[in-house]
Structure formats: C-alpha cells, structure tokens
C-alpha cells in the first residue's frame, strides 16, 4: 500500500505553496482537493462563456515575492500588474480619487481639505513604520513565549531586539496601532469624512468588525504590508485573474513531480495512537501518508476532519472559540460594456482601480450595525473593481468582468440559514447601489454570480465564509494564531500540521503560512531548507 511522504488537504494557495516546498525538498507529496479544480479562494473560473471570473479573492499584493522566486512562478505563467488607485464616489456627485503620483494625490485631497492634503505624509510615515516592524515577522514562525527551547528563546530575543530598537514613542504608537479602531486612528490625522472613509476601507475588509471597533487599525496594516515588485503597499491584478496564482503554483508543483487529485473531498484524517496516518475520502477510499497537512481552516480541520476524542480538551475549546465570523460576500458580474459613472470623468484613471461608494465612516459603521442584527447591510460597503480594464486575457475586448466585494453579510440571517431569496435580496442591495451611481448599469449585466457566506463556505470551504480563515484581531495573531501553544503549524496530533490562513501570519493571498509550515515540517524531518530563500536584503 502506497504511503505518501505528505498529503496536503486542500489545494488553495497555501496548500499548494506548502506542497511545492515539500516536494522540492525531495518528499513525495499528494494534494487532495474537493473541487474539480485547484485554487481554493484564488481561482479564475469561466462561469459564463467568454468571461473569466476572479470569483473569490480578486487582487494581489500580499503574495510573498520570495515564494514567487523560489517556486519559479513566472516560468509557470504568473504575472502581477500594478493598478491605479481608485476612488470613493460621494453622494454629492463628486469623488475622491487616490492617485499613485504623490503630488497629484495631495492636490486631490486638497480639493476637500488643504489640511488633510498635507497630513498624508505623516500618516504614510507612521503606517510605513509599523509595516517595517511587522513585515519581517511574516516569514518567521512565531515564537512560543512559554517555551524554553533555544529556538523559541532565540526568536523571542529577535522580537525583543526589534522592540529594543524602537524608541518609547514608537513602542507606544505600535501598541496603540495594534489595539485601536481604524476610525480613532484616522481621526488623529484627518478631518474630512470621505478621506477617512477612503482609508478606513482597509481596516474592515474581511473583518466582522466595524470601523469603530478596536483592533481594526491592525487590519489596515495587514492590507498595507504587501507589495508589487518592491513597491510596498501597492496592489495589483494577477494577469488572468487570481486563479493565475494557483495555476502557476499547481504547474510548478507538478513540474517538480508532485501529484494533485481534484474532486477528492476529505472526510476525515486517519488517526491512530495520536498520530496522523493518512486520510479518508468521502467515498471511503483511504490514502496513507507519513504526515498530513491541512490547508483547511482550523475549525474545519479539527471540528470536522478529526475526531473530538483525539484532541485535548482545552485545545478543542479554543478551536471552538476561534473567531472566524463570516462578514462578507461577493457579487461577480459579467458586463457587456464598461459601466459609466457620470461623476467620474471618462478619462479618469480611477476606472482601472478600486471604486467605492461609502463616503463616511459613519455609513460603514451603520452597515456593520445590520450585521450585528443578523442582516446583510441595507447600505452595503463595496470594494468594486474591473480588472479587465488592465487585463486583456479575461474577456473579449470591450467586455468586462466586475468584482464586487460586499460587506457586511452575516453567516446566518437572524439566526437561520441563508435562503435563495436572501441571496437575491443581498445581490439587489449591491446592484441597486451601483445603479444609483451608474445609470444603465443593469442593462449591461450579462451574467452574475452571488456568493453569500453560505456559498463561500459550501463552495470554497471557508468556515462561515470568513476570507481570512479567522479574524485578524490581536488576540488571534502571532503566537496566539490560531490558538495558544499551537502557533507553529503543528497540532496536538503527531504528524498533522496546519498550513492555512488560520495560522500565522494570517489571511490574504500571501502564501506565508504555507511556506512557514513547510519550513517547520522540514525542520521536524531534519531536511535541508536551502530552497527557501530569504525575503529582502533591506526593508
């Protein structure tokens, strides 16, 4: 009976990154994926003829460049294109744009407030300083603060040293930053509603918190610490849609000898004597492996794939309490032609960036109020983009794919499951908001896919539809992610590892959890890790 060196549950980007690194270290690796395609939440799917959809994740910045380099992803077709900053369309018929050019950006803000225009530099400095501290931590396993192992102590010393390099003022800023609400944080820099709303966006995306909830300032940082080819904080489109990331990963994996099985849903992990021995597929087929790595979120992994009896009580309780609340949905639209927004000049570069309609922090918070009451937001917050303005590969010329990330959408509607009627109502709240700013929008729609938390959980496998596989609040970060004592990708079960976004450093199409987990596995196997190159010479 064949026993694989490693079986990866789930062919999302982290599972594939993990598989690639293990395969390249000489292991014989199998990836099993329940869907008929790989990609997890990073896919490009032709849902209607002639239109490729980035139907879950839709932009790329966090994906680590060292992973792209190590795994030769450009050779396998990955290209990331930077896009122009977008705009917030305001209810008074104006808009606030974000231009990449520093001085144009300042002049744009000055239309609303000269003060805010000149406040941007200090804001950018402070956020960049925080990013510089956090970025090197992404590609390191978080130390266990209770451990006396030399490696943990070494990592703690590294952290302490990094801390020690900070002035008292920087440390207090950092602690405030990690615990504040994005709304309070922005109030310290800006006075104009729409300018604050413009920045607050990054503080709430994917999070079941409102802009006034503590902890959302950190979420903003999470969205700022990516890069496109060294341009820190920049975001880009993966050419061909987000599936290009996982397609390249899968190709790289197979080129190095790895095996992928799609359409293979894992029912449970085989555990014997406290050790993982393989997996059982939905049809009953058993596949054996020396170790098993789960790309699924921590709840799915331990509450569905592993028997409770095999897990320690406190661990289990903490997994149950892990916050992975669904807060968002997706409306993906195929368009016959480019929508017009009369408020936005026809030659505006903002059409090629992200567009928003929520022009005050207050409105975002009210949208969150609906979520708390168990309803989708009547006046939702949209992160809307049309990648086909830059990417010629996704549709025929002149046709467009529009991705709308929608917040807030609760995992359950007033305590009960979502129905199809709910889903349609949710979609209508989105379409009517867009149509308010874009006359004739409905007539351009060729096809539409609506994904509420229900669909995200059922189709992608994300518990409650949480895009980060667990909230990015400080109680669930670093050595507390996913749960204390298990932040180093290992689990209470021997040979069972975690590599998804539930683990440090968290979600987004980053690949860091997958790579860090591979490093830990190879360490346990005493295999060399020379094929894992370091990130940056200078930050």
């Amino acid at each position: 009976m064949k026993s694989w060196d490693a079986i990866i549950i789930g062919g999302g980007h982290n599972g594939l990154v993990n598989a690639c690194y293990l395969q390249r270290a000489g292991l014989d690796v199998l990836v099993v994926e329940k869907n008929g395609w790989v990609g997890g939440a990073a896919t490009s799917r032709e849902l209607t003829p002639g239109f490729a959809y980035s139907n879950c994740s839709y932009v790329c910045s966090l994906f680590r460049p060292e992973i792209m380099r190590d795994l030769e992803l450009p050779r396998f077709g990955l290209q990331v294109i930077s896009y122009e900053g977008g705009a917030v369309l305001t209810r008074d018929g104006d808009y606030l744009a974000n231009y990449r050019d520093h001085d144009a950006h300042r002049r744009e803000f000055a239309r609303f407030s000269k003060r805010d225009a000149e406040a941007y530099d200090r804001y950018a400095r402070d956020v960049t300083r925080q990013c510089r501290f956090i970025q090197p931590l992404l590609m390191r396993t978080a130390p266990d603060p209770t451990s006396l192992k030399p490696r943990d102590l070494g990592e703690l010393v590294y952290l302490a040293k990094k801390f020690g390099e900070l002035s008292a003022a920087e440390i207090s800023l950092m602690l405030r930053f990690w615990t504040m609400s994005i709304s309070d944080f922005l109030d310290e820099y800006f006075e104009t509603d729409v300018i604050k709303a413009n920045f607050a966006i990054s503080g709430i995306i994917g999070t079941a918190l409102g802009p006034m909830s503590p902890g959302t300032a950190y979420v903003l940082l999470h969205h700022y610490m990516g890069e496109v080819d060294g341009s820190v904080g920049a975001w880009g489109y993966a050419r061909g849609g987000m599936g290009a990331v996982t397609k390249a990963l899968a190709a790289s994996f197979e080129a190095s000898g790895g095996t992928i099985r799609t359409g293979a849903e894992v029912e449970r992990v085989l555990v014997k004597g406290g050790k993982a021995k393989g997996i059982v597929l939905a049809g009953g087929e058993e596949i054996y492996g020396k170790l098993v790595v789960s790309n699924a979120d921590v709840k799915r992994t331990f509450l569905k794939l592993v028997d409770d009896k095999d897990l320690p009580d406190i661990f289990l309780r903490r997994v149950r309490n892990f916050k992975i609340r669904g807060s968002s949905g997706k409306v993906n639209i195929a368009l016959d032609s480019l929508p017009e927004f009369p408020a936005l000049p026809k030659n505006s570069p903002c059409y090629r960036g992200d567009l928003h309609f929520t022009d005050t922090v207050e409105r975002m918070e009210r949208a969150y109020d609906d979520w708390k009451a168990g309803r989708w937001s009547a006046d939702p917050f949209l992160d809307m983009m049309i990648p086909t303005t830059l990417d010629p590969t996704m549709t025929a010329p002149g046709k467009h794919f529009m991705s709308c990330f929608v917040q807030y959408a609760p995992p359950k509607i007033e305590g009960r499951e979502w129905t199809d009627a709910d889903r349609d109502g949710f979609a209508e709240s989105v379409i009517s908001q867009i149509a308010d700013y874009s006359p004739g929008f409905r007539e351009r729609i060729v096809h539409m896919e609506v994904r509420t938390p229900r669909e995200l959980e059922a189709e992608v496998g994300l518990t409650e539809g949480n895009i980060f596989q667990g909230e990015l609040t400080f109680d669930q970060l670093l050595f507390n992610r996913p749960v204390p004592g298990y932040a180093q990708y290992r689990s209470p079960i021997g040979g069972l590892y975690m590599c998804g976004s539930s683990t440090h450093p968290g979600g987004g199409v980053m690949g860091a959890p997958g790579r860090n987990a591979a490093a830990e596995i190879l360490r346990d196997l005493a295999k060399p890790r020379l094929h894992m190159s370091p990130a940056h010479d200078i930050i």
Partner: protein
Amino acid sequence: MDTAADKVALRRAAQGHFSAWRIDTPFQPRLAELSRTDDWYSWAGYRAPHSLRDEELEYFAIRSQAALFDISPMTKYRVEGPDAEAFLNRLTLRDVTKLNPGRVHYTAWCDDEGFVLDDGTLFRLSAERFRLCCQERHLPWLLDSAVGFQVSIDEETEQVAGLALQGPTSFAVLREAGFAGIEKLKVFDLAELDHEGGKVVISRTGFTGDLGYELFVERALALSLWDRLVKAGELRGIRAIGYTALNRARTEAGLIVANADFVTSEHAIRANRLRMPDEIGLGFMVDATKGHFNGRRAILEARTRGKLRHVLVGLEIEGNVPAEHAIVYHKKHKEIGLVSAALWSPMAKKNIAIASLERPFGDTISDDLWVEIYAMRELQYQKLMKRAKVVQRPFIKLDRRTANPPADF
C-alpha cells in the same frame, strides 16, 4: 461662497487637475519659450527645469551676471494676526521678537523630540504679517501649533509666484527695472515695492552665496514681473536657469536642502535618520534664552547629556572627482558617514562636499578622514580613496554678497 452647495461646486471645479500630473508655475510660458533641453523634473508636483539650455553656462550666469530662477514651487504659508510673532517664536528655533518688520531670517522648526521638521526662511512683512517659505508641507503641524494663539495660517503656494534673481549684476538689473530704493536693501532686508498696480516683495536673500534677491508677487503679476526683469537685464547678461546650476551654487555656499542633506522628521521612516538642529549644522539657530519653543527641552537635554549622534560638515577632498554620495571613512576602513552633496567648485577651485558624519568624527576627531569615490568612466569604475579635510562652510565667501551699497557687478 459658504453654503454646502458652493463648496461642492468649488471642489468639482477643481476635479480636472489629474489631467496634468505636473502643474505649471506662473512662469511656465516663459520657461517653455526659453527651454532648449526640455529637461523637466518634478519639484513638489510642479514642472521645473533641470536646465534650460546648458547647465554649465547657467551656473556661470549666477557667478558672473544675473540668473533668474523660478522658486514658485517652494511651499509658502501666510501667518497673520496679533499673536503671529508669539506663535512663530513658539514654533521656530530663532528669536522672532528680534526679527523686525522688513527683515528675513533663516530658521528651522522641530517636533517635540527636537527633530527637525524643516528649515526655511521667515519673512516679516509687517508687525503682524509673516511669510514662511520651506521645502515640505506642514499645514497640520502649523495649525495644531497655533491653537491658543490669535493667528491665521494659510497655505499660499499656488497664489504667490516667486523668483530668485542672483548674481553680481542682480542689483543693477533691479535698479534698471526701476525698483526705487533697492540700493537701500542690506542682506536679509525686504521691501514691498510697486509693480503694475500691485506689490512685489523684494528681499536681499538667496540660495547661492552671491549677491542676490528674491521676489514674491501675486500670481496674476508674475509674467509682467518676469518681463520687466528680463528687459532691464538685457544688457547685464540676465539668464534664466534650471535647478542643476542653482544646486552647484548652493553647495559652494554650503547651504543644505531638506530631504537631500537631511531627512525631515515627518518623512523619516527609520528612526535613526531623524536629526536635531545641532546634527545638521543648524545649532546656531537654537535660542535657549528666548523662552519656550517646540523641541527646546529635548534639544537642550541632548546637548547637556551628549546625546547628539551626528554632525554635518563641509569637506575638502583631494583630487578633482566629485564625491557625490560617497562613504566617508576614518583611517580608510571605519565607515563614519555619507556625502550628501559634492562638486568641483569653480569658484573655490577645490573639490568640496557636504557630509553627515557620526560623532565623534567630524566633531572631536577630524584627522585621517577619507572618502571612497567610484568614478565611472566609459563603463569602468575607477575606485579612488581620497583624503578629506573638515573645513568651514560656506566654501566660498564673496564680498559682493554683503557689500553696501551693492556694486553694479
């Protein structure tokens, strides 16, 4: 224009700025006419010339005739009110009570920790009216600092056009242009003179270490002022110049540029790049006797506790190859600093540089200093290790700069 609808209309009217990433200064029509090199760069978002025809000849215009340089992109703030003096005294390092109406001084301002936010020139136009000119943008800082003072602060960069007229014949040009009484201006004096029914503020200031003036005028009068000067200077060699020429002159004059020779505190990402006034040669500005000003306690504490880590110095380097951005060594191997500006000085006939060093080097230890110069010549580096000597700035001292009355050339 105060209702909400008016504000929206104003905002919307300004939308179109994105169609030109680089905006024009009021003098752009003249600069465009003169430009042969089409060598533009972005100065704080304005289109500005590196050179117009020939950067070398433009430099020599500064030193031999009269050079006309557009300084409109410089950030300008109008500070006005009964408490303007008290506010500026609280904001900046020097004693503003000693700055009389009709005078200008070069000053700087710091954050609470004593790190320099920017340097700039402060013009006292009247008892209660000032203009602050600088490189970076500071409106939030100024507004927040002004809380409790009866003072209004307005950013007026776009509304006010600025010209520097620098060089030995600059005085004669202004006299020919009919600016009566210009001969009375001593260095750092200013006067408000008539121009086309408006006013032009002329100060005997500049960034070249030479005889020279700066002129500020409302935007609408910019071109007529330019034409007036050019006409008057026709026989005195007046020539419009770009930044490359000016940058040479300012280096000879030993003057520093924010975010070229030091990093301003609101832009420094890395905490160890922050600089106190004493660390960038601006310690002379700090007036410890004038009472409270922002950063005072931190600056004085750093002085008494010996916490100043850097020093900005002038270097004279052997040989003739400019040491731009070269590493400075002690005893040829210990890295102690970096050159931020350098050139072969035509006026001094010396190889000069402005450098930031880590104390005690450049402070108490100034012997055995070296710079490593990589001179690229036809795709090959010539690596030079050259001895450097700390010298006083300015590197050149021209009597004509301060002569009273100024000479015709």
